[in-house]
């Protein structure tokens, strides 16, 4: 692949916590405008991987670049070029919706007019026009999460990292959220998303499956289905894990 096309690249990226290896020499390449899914059970190492790529966590070994910047030395440049939404809800519940947007906009150094423009756009996107002066804590979770995603992208970053963005919301809200992800990718941004919902994997351009810190598969959903001969991603995941466990036992 041409280097200029790559937005995230890791090479044998590893992170250990004491004796426990959370991420075990993972190498991936993610293209511009791609929706890249990271699948795995809880504790498979998805969050650790994302945190390393965002510059929140120092890797134990291996290399990686995000938007062309090195994750060891250029974390500050990376932060200017990414949006990040963590598992935990990250807006201030005791601020109103527009106050939250103003705050994050200000932090990213947006000008006042820009913030106002972005705010109106975002509120329109999420469908919160009548709620702008409501406290964030009073919103339904689905709205909160779409709003959080909007806040993480106020500065128009080329790459977005989403760590389990849809956990805990109803199917309707999940669909709405994924619509937002699609729009984001269509506008040319790279979306790096972790999930443990297998049906969501269907929406990704490519998925990688993690288990116990290791990468056990990486391809398009249809290729993975063909490879395992299964109908759904759920079955693909189960069969891949099963064969891996069996393989380990032998």
């Amino acid at each position, binding site marked *: 692949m041409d280097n200029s096309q790559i937005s995230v690249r890791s090479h044998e990226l590893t992170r250990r916590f004491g004796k426990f290896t959370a991420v075990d020499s993972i190498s991936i390449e993610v293209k511009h405008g791609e929706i890249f899914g990271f699948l795995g059970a809880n504790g498979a190492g998805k969050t650790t991987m994302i945190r390393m790529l965002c510059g929140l966590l120092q890797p134990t070994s291996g290399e990686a670049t995000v938007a062309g910047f090195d994750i060891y030395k250029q974390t500050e440049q990376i932060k200017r070029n990414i949006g990040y939404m963590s598992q935990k809800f990250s807006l*201030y*519940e005791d601020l109103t919706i527009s106050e939250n947007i103003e705050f994050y906009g200000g*932090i990213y150094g947006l000008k006042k007019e820009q913030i106002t423009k972005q705010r109106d756009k975002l509120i329109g996107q999420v469908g919160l026009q009548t709620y702008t002066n409501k406290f964030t804590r009073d919103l339904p979770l689905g709205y909160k999460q779409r709003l959080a995603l909007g806040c993480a992208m106020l500065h128009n970053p080329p790459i977005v990292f989403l760590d389990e963005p849809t956990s805990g919301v109803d199917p309707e809200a999940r669909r709405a959220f994924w619509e937002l992800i699609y729009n984001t990718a269509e506008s040319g941004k790279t979306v790096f998303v972790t999930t443990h919902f297998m049906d969501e994997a269907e929406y990704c351009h490519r998925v990688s499956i993690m288990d116990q810190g290791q990468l056990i598969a990486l391809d398009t959903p249809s290729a993975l289905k063909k490879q395992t001969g299964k109908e759904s991603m759920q079955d693909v995941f189960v069969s891949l894990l099963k064969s891996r466990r069996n393989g380990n036992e032998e």
Partner: protein
Amino acid sequence: MQEIWVVMQKEFRQIFRIREMIAIIFVMPLIQMALLGFAISTEVKNVKLVVADQDNSFVSRELVRAFTKVEQFKLVGHVQSEKEIDALIHNWQAQLALVVPKNFGRDLQRGSIPEIQVIVDGMDGQTAGVAMGYAAGVLNDQLQKFLTQPQMRQLLRGVHMVNMQERMWYNPNLSPEQYMVPGIVVLLLTIVSMMLSAMSLVREKEIGTLEQLMVTPLKKHQLIFGKVIPFLILAFVEFMVVLQIAQWIFQIEMVGSLPLLSLLALLYLFATLGLGVFISTITTTQQQAMFVAWFFMVFMIIMGGFLVPIENMPPFLQKLTYINPMRYFMYMMRDIFQKGSSLHYLLKDAIPMTAYGVVIFTASVLKFQKRVS
């Protein structure tokens, strides 16, 4: 600069959104100020006194009356024997006992030097010491009075005594409020500023919003200053309000310069807020932060010269007080308040205090990592 402003704005919004918080920051200190000011005093009053006047003469009754006239003592009863005194002290009903022996008046006239006994319950060592001093004072005054009586005058022939005239500077009436109230203001300022700042960063850590901030280009110092400056402003406003109201409630007046005091208060706040932020960076939960802050505050209050003058402490503890920022501000506050000292005389406290703030803030910024642990 814009980023600091954005963070400040957010902090202010969050603080003022919690109604209890405003009450805690502004109303509570005033109530405490009033309570503390009236309650705290190193003076001892109404020491429960029991008298065994075995003489019951005019002279002995005069002597007992001298005790009842001062507010330090409160006569709770008359008894006859030492055994009764023992029972009363045992049940906490008396702290001090005065035994005037039989024939006291007669012996006094004859010049055969009778002996008055003062018994004190030593359980409360501090009060006991002070009460004994008072009792000695009352009795000494009586001694002087007897000496001036005509029949004593002949005894004084050929005696050459030095007599002491004392002048109390700055606080001629020895009013305890003059001393304690400024100290209490410092205390309240310390508690509010440290608690607010110690909980600040760690609260976001716990709620999870800090992780979000960490992936933004926001710089460490921007975050820290943006969080601390609102507290600085709040604490300073509170300081001014409490200071004014305290002067009004307790009818005391500050002699020194208010601008100078304000400047030093800001520098002091810089140090305490820095300490709070430092605590916030080394802890992971609010509960932990609170314990650590609590630990520091107790140390600061005990070793800050608020209750116990630093000069009274053993030398090794005195040295330890140099790492306590409260020590410096307590001295300066009291000096400005009562002596009207100028900056010139306070530099020896102002400089280490300011250095303290700079060091602790630098340490916090260095210690704070834009990473998760």
